[in-house]
């Protein structure tokens, strides 16, 4: 057979190992390997390495799936956010009007006083510390006690969301005085171009489902409540980007829900 004489290519050797070889070439490749010990050695090393990979990582998918990857929970969080966003947009149309929502001017959302005060505190803190060049933060991100410390002081289990998808790096955080003398936490993030965002968390008496957007000059902020904690993401007044970052924070912070389950 002429086929017998066709040299076996490297591609065919890989295809042979991976079960991708057309059946009519199989015998040819096996004959080739029998007479080419170097190729046979490569093929057997590829198989051995594949086995090492399977042994090394095969256990991962037999471990129980962590609660934060529970699909029902993720779908619920997704629903909740969709609903919150819709509610906020409706509220903006009813209250501030379309121009207010989409415009870039100073906008006052009809927020309840409890929300308004948290947002004002967050925006004020943002303005003060974002402008700081030398000491924008109190505790740097690489200090392992940063988040536990802020959690303990605010009295709620906090997490530092990862905004890597937005090109933002966690710089660190600080503790701030909030209303009624209670402590609030602020985390600061920075992009490669120096753009800074903050996430502010404080105890809040506002109703849980509220979501508010507000622009104050060069700073825009999104507020949402979760239980008795209010969160505010503040940053440059790019509404879409801010909303995406806030949504990402919302989703990541929602994971802290081993409330009771851990």
């Amino acid at each position: 057979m002429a086929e017998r004489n066709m040299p076996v290519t490297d591609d065919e050797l890989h295809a042979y190992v991976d079960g991708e070889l057309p059946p009519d070439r199989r015998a040819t490749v096996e004959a080739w390997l029998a007479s080419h010990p170097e190729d046979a050695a490569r093929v057997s090393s590829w198989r051995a390495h594949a086995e090492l990979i399977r042994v090394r990582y095969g256990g991962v998918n037999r471990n129980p799936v962590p609660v934060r990857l529970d699909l029902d929970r993720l779908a619920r969080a997704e629903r909740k956010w969709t609903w919150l966003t819709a509610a906020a947009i409706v509220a903006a149309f009813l209250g501030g009007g379309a121009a207010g929502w989409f415009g870039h001017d100073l906008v006052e959302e009809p927020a309840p006083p409890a929300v308004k005060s948290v947002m004002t505190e967050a925006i004020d803190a943002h303005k003060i510390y974002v402008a700081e060049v030398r000491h924008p933060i109190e505790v740097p991100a690489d200090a392992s006690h940063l988040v536990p410390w802020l959690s303990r002081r605010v009295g709620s289990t906090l997490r530092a969301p990862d905004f890597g998808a937005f090109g933002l790096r966690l710089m660190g955080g600080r503790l701030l005085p909030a209303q009624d003398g209670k402590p609030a936490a602020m985390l600061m993030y920075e992009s490669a171009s120096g753009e800074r965002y903050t996430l502010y968390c404080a105890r809040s008496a506002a109703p849980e489902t509220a979501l508010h957007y507000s622009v104050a000059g060069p700073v825009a902020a999104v507020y949402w409540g979760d239980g008795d904690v209010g969160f505010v993401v503040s940053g440059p007044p790019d509404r879409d980007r801010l909303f995406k970052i806030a949504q990402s924070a919302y989703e990541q912070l929602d994971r802290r829900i081993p409330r009771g389950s851990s």
Partner: protein
Amino acid sequence: MWEWDVSGFRPDVERSIPALRRYARALTRDGDVADDLVQDTLVRALRSEHLFHGGDVRSWLYTILTNLNRNRLRSLSRRPALMPMDDNDAADMAGPEAGARDIERALATLVEEQRSALLLVVLEGLSYREVAEVQGVPIGTVMSRLARARAQVKAFLDGERPALRRVK
């Protein structure tokens, strides 16, 4: 807004989670980062369900995860100073035997798309055609990535140890 229809989309996604975690773990070599990726993949999948018109859910999920990881690496590489705050590698190293540790190091020397191609084939059992879809490249490209990945792993494990390229 989120009505789960009879297509079995959601059970299919659910069944894929363990394999996604395995792939993400091998791809990133960090358990926390891996589960973050899987979570983002699942959220993205739930959100884009209406964009999914049949086909293999598992391949689609691998595609999302692979793209998210590429974005993650891109944002990391823009800031070389940014390393994961808690690198789990050290903790992992203590457990597995030497062979497992070596293969982990060998994989770490691969560039992202070669590692992804190798893992999708040998760990996840995808066909070349499926990997080509996941990576959005022709089959020939998948095969050359696979060949380069295997050559590099072999060279590393044979002790040649070329300059370490940590893409992490």
